[in-house]
């Protein structure tokens, strides 16, 4: 199965990045010591050689330190013991049988992930829906783009992305809705910026939060949370009134136009009403409408700001309506475009990994069930849509679900009411997790079995990116320990459940070929997803498969660049169906108790729950601590200070985060990152505070508008630890773990005083090689442990108002030989040459710090961002830090007028 894994290869392996949905091509060259050199694949159409900060740092995340390498079984005392694969698989299979036998197939559920490869997804979906006979397969994509799937299916008739990335190069207007593209899809953002620079394309950013993406926009519409559909309903009205509706296209290819327009007029009859609903100035709305109306080559792209909403499906529909009404769809440089979050969310959608799909873009109509059953020769087909993520966890909590198998995701962090989810998982009769890592919040819920799954670099299969492009993800590292690919694990369970024949695959290529065959099975062009051209793919052909955009039916192996320019929607009458929208409203509105709206999302250099990016010191340096962004006025209102701490409480849970003032955050809203978990922070499980209200069509929860209260929290002291990973801080301390060069660090705040921390340090470090500085009256304690001429550990504590800075100590910690003359100076926490005082990282690709960039700008008022790039290389790789660099320059000019 590992035929293509070059154990000590020197040749670069072509694969794809495991992070966002852009699906960049990556060249990985193993170093023979378990690591690899990473570069962008210049031949991959998604990125043409470019990588973002996260992708560039992939080489730093390949260690085995945090991996689970053997099947683990939970014993009576709750401890985990290593078992053989046979023992684990037999036990899991028997466990599943017992549950099915006693409670029926519908007591069993799989919770999958956009991190899985299509082949893994396919066999899991097939096993559950066709052989176990339960429809309860859902995936973390439910949190990601389920609303887009529902919107696509309701309006376009199928979950089809009409356009492709080249449209971002050739559009004259690019509208980004609810998308911090600069941070979350940096490589696409660079393409957009290039188009803007070279072709003068205009960029409009629509987002309640003014993010880095807005730094480079022609128009920024910071609308009220949840009012997107009002804005686009108003646009539809404007287009109609301006006589810009493409009558011919609508006549031939669109149903429900008049009803939809009437509905739009009810919601947004005029600018005044739109202004009232969105909180935007009429002038801005007008210029947006005018711009959109007068620009045929327009791409409207959206991400989680649209999807993660209790009205996400309507928001998607509202956008699609405008493109349908003008026929601006599937044409070069124009169309609606969902920018997916995960590397293989699309692949999951294609196999049917979502609970409201069956397989290969087929649903649960009797004909479709029958067709899939015949293709699979399935003994026991699921008969109706299954439980969607949030409902699925409710079913776990109330005992309707007895057995659950979680693969490649961390629901105890990412789902709404994450604490309740974690508790519910604990109560399962049979809880199985396929994982890469040995420890995370989901594993903390105590699965009966932990199955060691292959990670990126070891896995072998295919992924589909946001533009329907199927690419091979290839292994370039050997499978460590007992680790196995997810598809292998699923097939072994299927075999033990008695379905050996249906799951006897010689390799991932055979699974893919079957998946392709199913997509083409009885598909007379009435189903969008058809990759029949790959149905007979040999292993060699599979291994050399070039990136291709589906549909790729038999005879069209070159794939399809765009769809729907000439209609041809995948509905009975081949017409798209415009849908009436509900009045825009948030699922739960603010109250006296919860006066703010909690918005959640990503930061630039981290991914999901940080199991991978958290291993890179470079990526951890940009935003080191879980931080809540607050508008300065709200900070004043709630007595919060920049750099202080705040407790954020909702009806569901609470967290404590560092506070950062941010004028870009809308008044009345706060923003918190999704990445931190109990693994790497004491009080930052934001999922625990997020509400479970879901969209009626997509079941996607409203993760970006949970009513919340915020209040300052104060500590006596603040400090940091380097090394000494096992040192336990005093109870009630706030801490966050940060990957640093040479090991791990912790930033913390505590109610303990210098004396107590000194006792703690001495107990932990002993006196041999311990260097100390004590100023108890000042609440100051610093110590460094020097062993074998290197800085083995350090602990700095200062009063709350004067937290120690760790850059200088960090660089000493990184070096394996400590200059004896520096022993004492170490505790000064400073380096006189200033070299180590980098400040927070701005450019993660080249590790350039804020101070260096400030200094460079300070050299003259004429210094441009390009000069910075030439001088420091900052911003010259992925460019996701360019907006930040531009802002630093601007600030500099304000501060030092030259």
């Amino acid at each position: 199965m590992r035929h293509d894994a070059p154990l000590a290869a020197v040749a670069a392996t072509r694969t794809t990045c495991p992070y966002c949905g852009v699906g960049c091509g990556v060249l990985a060259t193993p170093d023979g010591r378990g690591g690899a050199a990473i570069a962008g694949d210049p031949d991959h159409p998604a990125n043409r050689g470019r990588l973002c900060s996260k992708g560039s740092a992939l080489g730093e995340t390949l260690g085995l330190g945090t991996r689970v390498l053997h099947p683990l079984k939970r014993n009576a005392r709750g401890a985990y013991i290593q078992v053989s694969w046979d023992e684990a698989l037999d036990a899991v299979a028997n466990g599943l049988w017992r549950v099915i036998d006693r409670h029926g197939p519908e007591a069993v559920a799989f919770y999958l992930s956009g991190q899985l490869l299509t082949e893994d997804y396919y066999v899991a979906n097939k096993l559950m829906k066709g052989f176990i006979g339960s429809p309860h397969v859902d995936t973390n994509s439910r949190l990601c783009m389920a609303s887009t799937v529902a919107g696509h299916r309701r309006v376009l008739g199928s979950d089809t992305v009409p356009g492709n990335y080249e449209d971002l190069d050739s559009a004259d207007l690019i509208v980004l809705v609810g998308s911090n593209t600069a941070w979350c899809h940096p490589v696409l953002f660079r393409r957009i910026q290039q188009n803007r620079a070279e072709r003068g394309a205009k960029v409009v950013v629509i987002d309640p939060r003014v993010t880095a993406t807005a730094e480079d926009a022609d128009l920024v519409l910071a609308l009220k949370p949840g009012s997107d559909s009002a804005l686009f309903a108003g646009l539809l009205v404007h287009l109609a009134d301006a006589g810009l509706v493409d009558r011919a296209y609508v006549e031939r290819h669109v149903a429900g136009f008049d009803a939809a327009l009437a509905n739009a007029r009810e919601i947004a009859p005029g600018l005044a009403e739109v202004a009232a609903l969105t909180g935007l100035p009429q002038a801005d709305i007008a210029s947006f409408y005018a711009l959109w109306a007068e620009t045929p080559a327009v791409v409207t792209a959206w991400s989680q700001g649209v999807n993660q909403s209790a009205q996400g499906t309507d928001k998607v529909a509202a956008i699609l309506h405008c493109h349908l009404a003008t026929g601006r769809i599937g044409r070069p440089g124009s169309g609606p475009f969902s920018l997916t979050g995960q590397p293989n969310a699309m692949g999951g959608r294609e196999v049917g990994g979502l609970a409201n799909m069956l397989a290969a873009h087929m649903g649960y109509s009797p004909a479709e069930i029958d067709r899939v059953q015949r293709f699979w020769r399935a003994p026991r087909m699921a008969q109706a849509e299954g439980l969607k993520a949030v409902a699925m966890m409710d079913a776990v909590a109330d005992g309707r679900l007895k057995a659950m198998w979680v693969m490649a995701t961390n629901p105890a962090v990412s789902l709404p009411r994450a604490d309740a989810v974690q508790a519910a998982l604990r109560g399962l009769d049979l809880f199985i997790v396929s994982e890469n890592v040995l420890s995370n919040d989901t594993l903390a819920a105590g699965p009966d079995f932990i199955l060691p799954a292959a990670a990126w670099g070891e896995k072998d299969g295919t992924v589909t990116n946001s533009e329907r492009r199927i690419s091979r993800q290839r292994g370039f590292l050997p499978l460590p320990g007992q680790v196995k690919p997810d598809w292998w694990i699923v097939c072994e369970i299927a075999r033990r459940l008695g379905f050996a024949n249906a799951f006897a695959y010689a390799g991932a290529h055979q699974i893919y070929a079957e998946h392709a065959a199913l997509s083409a099975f009885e598909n007379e062009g009435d189903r969008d997803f058809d990759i029949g051209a790959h149905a007979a793919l040999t292993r060699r052909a599979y291994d050399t498969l070039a990136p291709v955009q589906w549909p790729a039916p038999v005879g069209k192996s070159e794939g399809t660049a765009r769809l729907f320019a000439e209609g041809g929607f995948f509905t009975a009458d081949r017409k798209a169906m415009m849908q009436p929208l509900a009045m825009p409203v948030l699922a739960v509105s603010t109250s006296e108790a919860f006066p703010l709206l909690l918005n959640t999302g990503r930061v630039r250099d981290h991914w999901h729950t940080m199991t991978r990016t958290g291993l890179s010191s470079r990526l951890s340096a940009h935003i080191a601590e879980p931080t809540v962004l607050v508008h300065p006025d709200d900070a004043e209102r709630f007595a919060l200070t920049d750099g202080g701490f705040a407790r954020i409480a909702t009806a569901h849970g609470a967290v404590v985060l560092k506070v950062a003032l941010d004028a870009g955050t809308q008044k009345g809203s706060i923003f918190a990152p999704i990445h931190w978990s109990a693994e790497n922070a004491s009080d930052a499980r934001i999922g625990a505070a997020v509400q479970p209200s879901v969209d009626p069509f997509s079941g996607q929860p409203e993760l970006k508008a949970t009513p919340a209260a915020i209040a300052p929290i104060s500590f006596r002291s603040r400090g940091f630890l380097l090394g000494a990973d096992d040192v336990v801080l005093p109870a009630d301390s706030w801490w966050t773990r940060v990957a640093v060069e040479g090991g791990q660090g912790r930033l913390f705040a505590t109610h303990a005083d210098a004396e107590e921390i000194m006792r703690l340090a001495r107990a932990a470090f002993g006196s041999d090689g311990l260097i100390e500085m004590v100023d108890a009256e000042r609440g100051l304690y610093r110590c460094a442990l020097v062993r074998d001429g290197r800085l083995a550990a350090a602990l700095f504590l200062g009063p709350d108002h004067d937290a120690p800075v760790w850059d200088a100590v960090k660089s000493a910690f990184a070096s394996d030989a400590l200059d004896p003359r520096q022993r004492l100076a170490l505790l000064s926490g400073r380096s006189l040459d200033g070299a180590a005082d980098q400040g927070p990282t701005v450019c993660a690709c080249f590790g350039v710090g804020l101070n260096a960039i400030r200094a460079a700008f300070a050299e003259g008022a004429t210094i441009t961002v390009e000069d910075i790039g030439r001088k420091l290389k900052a911003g010259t790789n992925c460019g996701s830090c360019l907006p930040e660099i531009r802002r630093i320059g601007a600030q500099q000019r304000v501060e030092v007028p030259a």
Partner: protein
Amino acid sequence: MAEPLVIVGKGMAATRLVDELSQRALGRYSIAVIGAEPRLAYNRVLLSPLLAGEIGEPEIELKPAAWWQARGVSMLYGKPVTGIDRAAKSVTLADGLTLPYGKLVLATGSKPLRPPFPGGDLPGVATFRDTADVEAMRAYAERGARVVVIGGGLLGLEAAYGLARAGGQVTLLHLVDRLMERQLDAEGAVLLAAAMAQRGITVRLNASTKGFVGKDKVEAVELADGTQIPADLVVIAIGVRPNIDLADAAGLKANRGIVVDDHLASEDPAIFAIGECAEHRGQVYGLVEPAYEQARVLAARLAGREASYGGSLLSTNLKVSGVGVFSAGEFEAGEGAQIMVLRDPSAGIYRKFVLRDGRLAGCVLVGDTTGALFYLGLIRSQQDISPIRADLPFGEAYCTPRAA
């Protein structure tokens, strides 16, 4: 005709006085310097390196003969002064010679303390004061003799170190439980003791000497508890006493030292005293820095300028190579004081700062004395150190406003 200025004593204070005076008022006085030791003035501070063999005899000389000649100073050495006739304003020398003076400066320094221990007069019992002592001690040490040094203060430590370096098997006896107890706190003293031990010196604290045992020469030191420590040589280095015999004989007011005012004048306006023999505001300094400050002030006065001496801030510098010890001002935190400590025990480093109302009141540096003068300056100036407090222990370079 220049006024005759007679300086009794030919040590560091006297030399500095001539130096300062010659820069201010060369020719105003005809200067005569009279010394008991039959050699040119030398740097007493360098006696222990000399003993250790780290430097040679020529290197400790303060100024060459030519320097004195160039300043027209008549040098009379090896000729102790036997009396002062204040009425006649003249001094008499051992050989009967009488010199008139317009102004007389007493810089007679001090004598080693030598308590009347039983057996104290046995051969092999010595003190540590001048080059003659050093030669004798080296002779013993170089043949690996067993040496007992009595006194764990500056002098004793320097003697012990010198002897050990020169080859002696040295035991250091100290009366109390802590070395340099007048300059060091407990933690600093412990580090210092360890450093001495590393240099092959056996340190015995709480060791009170009862007497010396031996027939025709010293053979052992007997302690109060009865234990005997074999010794071929015993060096008594428990301190010094101001040398005020002349002043007493002349009826000048003297307590421990010759009492002088802020102009360094004794009760006789024509007679001055500087250095270890002088007592200013009840304080007698056994250190070189105050002597230099006094010399500077007196030189200015004699040159007819306004100047006055307000006393010196006590600061101690142990000159034992590799064992830096610096102490200044308050070294134990008294009432209302705050302490800041920087310690690196495995490197033998200890830095303690005593703070009062945001000002530096004193500090102790053991192992690494860099920045000593900087801290001394802060103690003297009493400036507010709050803004640099956290950086203080790391030296002057760090004590600059933090970069943004």
